């Protein structure tokens, strides 16, 4: 048998090494999986990881799409990383994302068809506010009553989905939509459309926000006292109290900021790539962002890179569906495996593994 010995400190080497190891193992087991499905594993892996970036036919389109997919993932994952560092488990980002989109779209639709350059900034504020308020519910319950934030935030995802279904069939439904559920398309409403900043680059306002968030959170975590407080609360809750960290403020900060960022992501999505509020508007970014946050080691730069990687598996996965007829589900499986292998290889960062000796 093997024995684990807890390291006094996380191994820096393994923290950075294990994501790469996990990606490698995932590729190998993915290859085996594709071979089992009767596909050429090298071709499948190439289509998923190489073609979206370098294929002469697709790359010009899929490289920008990479940013479109990575933007919301990074934005949400950065928010989550604050909480995860402090031991505050917000797994309801999906719900906060939905609320942000609903708030943002509601502002736009309230002004429709007026054109004004103030509408879009107002939508940004509304989107962040929507997510923030939705994140505030588990935050306050946790801070005041010590209610389990994992369960509350998760339950609120399903409440948010019901609200989404309700508004797409009622309040926000497109009056010219022939009864089909869904709001007006914001892409066709100039003042509310989240357009590409540079044409055909995929770089819309949400992606820009995601990049800025990466930089700002890097500064907060490394240079600012709040960053220190967060890390301390996560690593040594008792010590943090002595250090004068206000636990309530800390929880509210973590959940509030992740709610606001998820809400922003939802707002940018509904006014950009998606264009409208529909029953199935949310596509799991809030949950996938949890993988992104872990894969990125809860570090802003890491999250930036892992967001791009996960986006690549989405785009490449769609390509594989089209080119090889691989079922879309294989990509879900792929992402799940990636997370599993990462969690497994994390062992090396936290523990020393001794084989054989059993004292």
């Amino acid at each position, binding site marked *: 048998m093997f024995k684990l010995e807890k390291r006094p400190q996380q191994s820096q080497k393994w923290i950075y090494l294990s994501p790469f190891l996990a990606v490698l193992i995932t590729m190998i087991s993915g290859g085996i999986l594709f071979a089992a499905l009767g596909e050429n594993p090298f*071709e499948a892996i190439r289509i998923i990881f190489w*073609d979206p970036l370098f294929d*002469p036919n697709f790359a010009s389109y899929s490289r920008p799409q990479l940013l479109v997919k990575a933007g919301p993932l990074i934005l949400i994952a950065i928010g989550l990383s604050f909480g995860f560092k402090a031991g505050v488990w917000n797994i309801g980002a999906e719900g906060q994302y939905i609320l942000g989109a609903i708030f943002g779209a509601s502002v736009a639709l309230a002004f429709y068809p007026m054109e004004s350059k103030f509408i879009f900034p107002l939508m940004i504020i509304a989107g962040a506010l929507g997510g923030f308020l939705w994140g505030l519910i588990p935050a306050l319950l946790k801070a005041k009553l010590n209610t389990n934030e994992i369960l509350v935030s998760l339950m609120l995802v399903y409440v948010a989905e019901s609200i989404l279904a309700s508004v797409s069939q009622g309040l926000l439904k497109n009056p010219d939509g022939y*009864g*089909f559920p*869904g709001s007006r398309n914001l892409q066709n409403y100039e003042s509310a459309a989240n357009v590409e900043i540079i044409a055909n680059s995929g770089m819309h306002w949400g992606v820009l926000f995601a990049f800025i968030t990466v930089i700002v959170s890097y500064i907060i975590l490394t240079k600012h006292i709040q960053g220190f407080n967060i890390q301390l609360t996560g690593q040594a809750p008792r010590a943090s109290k002595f250090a004068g960290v206000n636990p309530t403020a800390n929880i509210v900060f973590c959940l509030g900021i992740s709610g606001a960022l998820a809400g922003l992501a939802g707002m940018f999505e509904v006014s950009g*790539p998606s264009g409208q509020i*529909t029953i199935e508007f949310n596509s799991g970014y809030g949950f996938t962002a949890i993988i992104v946050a872990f894969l990125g080691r809860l570090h802003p730069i890491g999250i930036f890179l892992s967001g791009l990687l996960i986006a690549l598996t989405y785009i490449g996965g769609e390509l594989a569906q089209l080119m090889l007829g691989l079922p*879309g589900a294989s990509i879900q499986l792929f992402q799940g495996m990636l997370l599993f292998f990462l969690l497994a290889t994390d062992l090396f960062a936290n523990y020393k593994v001794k084989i054989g000796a059993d004292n």
Partner: protein
Amino acid sequence: MYIKSVIAGAIASLGVAAAALAADVKVGFVYVGPVGDYGWTYEHDQGRLAVEEHFGDRVETVYQELVPEGADSERVMTQMALQGADLIFTTSFGYMEPTINVAKKFPDVKFEHATGYMRADNVSTYSARFYEGRAIQGHIAGKMTKTNKVGYIGSFPIPEVVRGINSAFIHARKVNPDVEFNIVWIYTWFDPAKEADAATALIEQGCDVVLQHTDSTAPQAAAEKAGGVITFGQASDMAMFKPMPRVSSIIDDWAPYYIARTQAVLDGTWTSTDTWDGIGPGMVGIGEITSAVPADVKAEALAMKDAIASGDYHPFTGPINKQDGSVWLAAGETADDGTLLGMNFYVEGIKGDVPQ
């Protein structure tokens, strides 16, 4: 950069790309359900297979199933176009705006959107007059129900679905003045669990006929389990539930249309059109009426089918009043296509409201 693309090209040429070079025309299909739904998507895929068989090596087809209606569908269409598709069929109402958006970016690619109403120079629309088949179903339902309660599983309250409800109801009432329709909306095209629950709920309410405007066979299975309930195949024959509960069906036959449109692209004669065909041209088929239906009812149903096919009879022929009692069609008057395409009201006698 150059070396990279040479390498990539070399690798690619070993794979599927090799096959792509051989065909003259590449046709893409975007599906909302799985090809194995034995309903809506299944029939579109049968159409795709017919295209492959008809043209052989001259045409290559690609498809993607279970594509959500929204931002993802736009990317799927774009990737198909980039992959070299010359003609793309998008087969669900919710793909309407994405189709128009992508078509703008690829003026040389032809698009065909099913059941929608937005067209462009390179976007055609096509649909079938399913309501003609619904009239025959309504007739059989009205004759066969013993409880005088007919259940109807609606997907979305869009004109196409409302039209089907009206057509079935008018013809059920014609032969059975006591018949009532119980309508349940489930807001999905394809969700077997929800469809089964809806069918079960309707059966428990006393409905002994269940009509569906959703794509799976789950309501058929629920009816079979309950026993003594009749259903109709929707979009596809659903023949595995013969002779009971499935007593007949509406079959969407897209093959002739898909072949004709692919031919038009091959010949360079493709133009943007609006097609709405029914039983006559063969786009709507009526599946075998089984032995569970009495011979006289079957004969009447077939007579109605012939009358509709020849154009002698229009399922929406006055006098028909709207739900509120106001006159819609005077005696002998038939509905115009414009009204039918935007139909958002029930006819007189149906209870409840079209969800707004």
